[in-house]
């Protein structure tokens, strides 16, 4: 965390444009990557990223440092948005076939545009459990510490180490199988 972040947050609470821009620029790529690896679709990831920051802005007034860093708070908002997306998608699967085809074509186009490397990793991650995915993304994509991941997921550091172990075990099996 940057030293000036609490000050920036206080300024952003008063809707200071510079402070809001600065906070956004510091966190946007991490939030985007976190969302992208969870949803696997560039367009959806962009939409959800926008939604996370808009929600954060609306709720900023109530944010206080109580053992949770700003980035962790953003990740929690992102997690809530991702879950909303999956629920909505589950409902969309009940749509008539034509509508589903349109949605699939769009996703196909977006995914083919994505780099192979991301795609492979995302595909492997998708086979993990929800918590395992989060631990891998937060620790190895975003480079957060066990303590930070624990705060975001609301678990102990011991639980994070355990999840990390199981997640890496599963991933290496998946990757070996896919080679």
């Amino acid at each position, binding site marked *: 965390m940057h030293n000036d972040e609490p000050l920036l947050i206080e300024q952003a609470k008063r809707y200071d444009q510079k402070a809001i821009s600065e906070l956004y*620029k510091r966190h946007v790529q991490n939030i985007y990557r976190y969302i992208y690896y969870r949803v696997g679709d560039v367009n959806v990831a962009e939409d959800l990223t926008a939604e996370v920051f808009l929600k954060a802005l609306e709720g900023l007034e109530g944010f206080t440092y109580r053992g949770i860093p700003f980035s962790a708070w953003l990740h929690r*908002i992102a997690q809530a948005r991702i879950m909303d997306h999956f629920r909505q998608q589950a409902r969309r699967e009940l749509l008539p076939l034509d509508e589903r085809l349109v949605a699939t074509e769009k996703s196909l186009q977006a995914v083919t545009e994505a780099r192979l490397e991301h795609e492979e990793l995302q595909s492997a991650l998708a086979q993990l459990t929800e918590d395992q995915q989060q631990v891998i993304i937060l620790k190895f994509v975003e480079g957060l510490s066990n303590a930070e991941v624990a705060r975001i997921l609301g678990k102990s550091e011991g639980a994070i180490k355990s*999840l990390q172990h199981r997640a890496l075990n599963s991933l290496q099996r998946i990757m070996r199988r896919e080679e």
Partner: protein
Amino acid sequence: MTEPDLEAILDECLQNMSTPGESIERCLQRYPQYAGQLAPLVQVADHIRRTSHPMLSASATQAIEQRLLRKAGELRQSRAKPGLRPLSLSWRPLVTIAAVLIVVLALVLAGGGGIVYASTDSLPGDPLYGIKRAAEQVQLFFAPAGTRRAELHLKFAERRLEETQALVETRGKVDEETLAAIAQETELALEEVEGVHPADRSELVEKLISLTERQQAVLKSVQAKAPESAQKGLNRALEASQRGHERAREALEKEKPRQETRPTQSPTPFETPKPTHTPKATHTPGPTKTPKPTHVPGKHGRGQEPLSTPPGRSGEVHGPPSTPPGKLEEREQETPATSPGKSGEEHGPPATPPGQSGEKEHGPPDTPPGQDKDGGKDKGGGKGKGP
């Protein structure tokens, strides 16, 4: 070795990987009996770390930032209770405004009301033109944020346009500052409109569209008569006007669904454009206006603190226009728009981040999404992928 021990050793090796001078090999050498088990796991982690991860494109980054700043503007406007001017101002605008006030009020008190009045017909470069612009600043100074201010900016944009036309017709020249002021006043009107009450917004947006259309017609006619040296500035003004027009059109599109759900509200046509600059005999300049005691000066209501928390502040009024069409809007509808901070939720742990309030509708209140036990069947990430 027990599982927890192996987990701890794995974690130690993973942490060491990011320490200078450390390597996977060195860590594995410390635990040779487990090297076979640890090596593939550490290698997977290393592979993920080294992967070139996706980046949000520059255009998307910028577009989201713009939406965020627009939203911030709306929220700021909604915080400022109409009729209660924000207090905090930086010194420079305060001093400038105070100086303008003193000069204009002194002129009025010294029987100079006529001077202010006479200045209304002045053109850039005239001795009284500064008084005219100062009087406008005073009007803005006392105008409450929202509809009134937006109307003033529209009016001043219209005036600058008339002045430009009059200058080229009577003196055969163009004033760059006045041209820039056309765009500036239009921009300020657009910004102000975003923060006004939805009931008033459509009418103002219609006026903005009408104004920008007229700007383009007038500027093109001016361009035909203006000297070569003025063409560049006129082109810039035309481009700025076009941008303003597009933004106003977008704003109107956003207003349409709202209008359809309300009783018919016919847009008030903007005042008829004047082909040439004509003195307005009935115009009363701003300085004579009685200041409202509840107002404290502010420049367009930005970066200022309200005197108190305004009642009725919510996202209800300003939320919808910033919601993008399509998927996001659908999500908003499904997730009750509980405005963060309203529900009394706090945002530290065990705080609920904004937007998570809607989660409770979908599951047991005590089970926030994404908090399932490891090994649970909630494999949300498995869904929603492209092929």
